[in-house]
């Protein structure tokens, strides 16, 4: 019927897969309780509660319009920028309520970085793209510090070797995959705890996608990563935990292997076997 190994083979190395199970489950980094999102009168998310572990990749999967991106955008309050959007419930990141009226959303977004579906580098130089975040948050005092942050971030994003000789060239002149890694470097440069990725590979070719996936595997040592993806293979390859959404509801969540091999809900099974979606 459904062969889970077909999905699992795609993982970026069996060692990584094995390591997931060896790793003790860390304290939840993000805790969402009864989160509902409304766009005007329309309810896009129905009372979702979910724990997202730290230093791991959590994937949100589900058919289009199921609320997974909406839920992701709650974690850095990007929904605030949408006219008429309203969020109910509580979301705690490292023990602090991010919807606390006293919390400064600018500070939150420095802690929770985001990578978007379409690579969106600023039409500025590669250097300026990475340096922008640290600069507005006042993270560095000297030019040398900034150079260090830019190089470090580009290295961690696996882009340094490709761009080190043309840092002053426009970030928009890079290839799609490079642009997306530049966006990841830009997010890392601010020193966040969490990186949200909203379908980061949907506009990329398979080779660029593979690079980003490798990078995610690398980054999860230091960051909590939440990724929304349309590709179930990608979720299976990169994530340790998977949450399946359908029609604004969280249907099921658990260790990725379990979701893909022995889903407990009928809808999950139908989705991952390609009956709908």
């Amino acid at each position, binding site marked *: 019927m459904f062969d889970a190994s077909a999905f699992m083979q795609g993982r970026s190395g069996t060692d990584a897969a094995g390591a997931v199970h060896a790793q003790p489950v860390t304290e939840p980094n993000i805790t969402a309780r009864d989160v509902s999102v409304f766009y005007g009168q329309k309810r896009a998310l129905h009372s979702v509660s979910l724990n997202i572990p730290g230093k791991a990749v959590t994937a949100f999967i589900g058919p289009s319009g199921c609320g997974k991106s909406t839920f992701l955008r709650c974690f*850095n309050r*990007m929904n605030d*920028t949408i*006219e008429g959007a309203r969020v109910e419930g509580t979301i705690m990141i490292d023990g602090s309520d991010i919807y606390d009226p006293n919390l400064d959303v*600018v*500070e*939150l*977004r*420095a802690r929770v*970085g*985001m990578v*978007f579906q*379409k690579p*969106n*580098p*600023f*039409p500025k130089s590669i250097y300026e793209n990475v340096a*922008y*975040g640290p600069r*507005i*948050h006042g993270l560095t005092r000297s030019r040398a510090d900034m150079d260090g942050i830019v190089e470090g971030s580009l290295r961690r994003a696996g882009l340094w070797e490709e761009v080190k000789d043309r840092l002053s060239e426009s970030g*928009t002149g890079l290839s799609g995959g490079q642009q997306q890694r530049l*966006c990841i470097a*830009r*997010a890392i440069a*601010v020193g966040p705890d969490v990186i949200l990725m909203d379908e980061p590979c949907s506009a990329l070719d398979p080779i660029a996608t593979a690079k980003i996936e490798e990078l995610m595997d690398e980054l999860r040592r230091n960051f909590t990563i939440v990724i929304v993806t349309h590709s179930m293979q990608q979720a299976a390859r990169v994530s340790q935990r998977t949450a399946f959404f359908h029609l604004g509801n969280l249907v099921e969540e658990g260790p990725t292997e379990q979701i893909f091999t022995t889903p407990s809900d009928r809808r999950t099974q139908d989705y991952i076997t390609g009956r709908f979606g």
Partner: protein
Amino acid sequence: MSAVTSDLPETRSSSAEKVRGSLARRHAAERRFKAIGMLAVILGLSFVAILFATVLRKGVPAFWQTTVTLPVHFDPAVVKVPPMPAPQAGQSPAAYQEELTAWRTMLAGANWGRLIENALLAELPPEAASRRRDVQRLVTSSERFRLRDMVERDPGIIGQTVTVTLLADANVDIWMKGNVDRSLSDAQLALNPEQRRYVDTLNEKGLMQQSFATALFLNVDSRASPASAGLAGAFVGSLFMMLIVIVLSVPIGVAAAIYLEEFAPKNRLTDLIEININNLAAVPSIVFGLLGAAVFINWIGLPLSAPLVGGLVLTLMTLPTIIITTRATLRAIPPSIRSAAVGLGASRVQTVAHHVLPLALPGILTGTIIGVAQALGETAPLLLIGMSAFVASVPATPLDQSTALPVQIYLWQGNELRNFFEGRTSAAIIVLLSLMIALNALAIFLRRRFERRW
């Protein structure tokens, strides 16, 4: 299933036939549409071509004007002015200034016209001496002041003979350029038969020539001496107004557009504001003139005919244009750039200042320059705030009385000395159009220069 499959070939062939049948009709419609479009373009272009051809044909000759080059003898018997006072030892500067002013007043009172008459008579047959009045009118009246200014600059030339190029009278210019039908009866011609003979005599002697009309650019408007009427006053008036428009409408318009587009909540109030701004752009300009007259002149008490008031009125007219184009430009900035900045923790002001505005700059510049160019050509509101008055001075400040380029065109167009002012009007139109084309070229240049691709 099987029924559908068997039906298929037949359906296919019949639908192919239908497609073929409709093809001719569709292609014909396309050809018709293309022809109508091309006709519209050709029609529009030909109107522009006719306009330019007319203006250039009439205006370009007006950039050259008839002058008479004569040796003028600065006869001390005519001028009768004591030598220029020199500062004496022990004299206070104030007392010297007073003496100097008295000397200048004396200069102004001298009979400079007589010098020009004498110079002309020297070149004309002896009997002309009995027709001094006719001779005097061959040279435009303001040239007397030229001679006075020459003496004021260098009193040493009194007693000497200097060759001076003098502007001929407007009627002489018309006669020389053939802008009048020479076969008309004496009663219908501005120059009497003697004057016409004198002009021809001077011309035969090679004393008359067509010189570049610097008066057009350097002089102010003149009624007594139409040949020396120029655009300087109107030009400076327009310049003051444009500066006021730029200084006021750009910051206010761009700030309003940014607020409405990036910060204001979308609700009924902002919808209402948006509708009203769009409506303001369509308000006839003369209404803005009435508003300016009521608010700035009657209520606030600003002076009539002042470029300041004109600038304020034109600012009101330009604001909607700038707000609308700036908003359209801001809306065209991809939202992904805003998301990227906001996602990094940039505040809204930082997002706008660091990312949105730099990208919108070329569009804002274009909108601004087109708005300013529109204001430059606006006439109707200026008529209502008194800027259509005859002003024979260059405004030194925006509060002085002044006129503006388009208003000057309107005034000249209505001048009774038609044969002369038709050319002047077209020349002024060429100057105004050149300014507009320059502004639009600047807009295109800036857009190309600052445009960034992503």
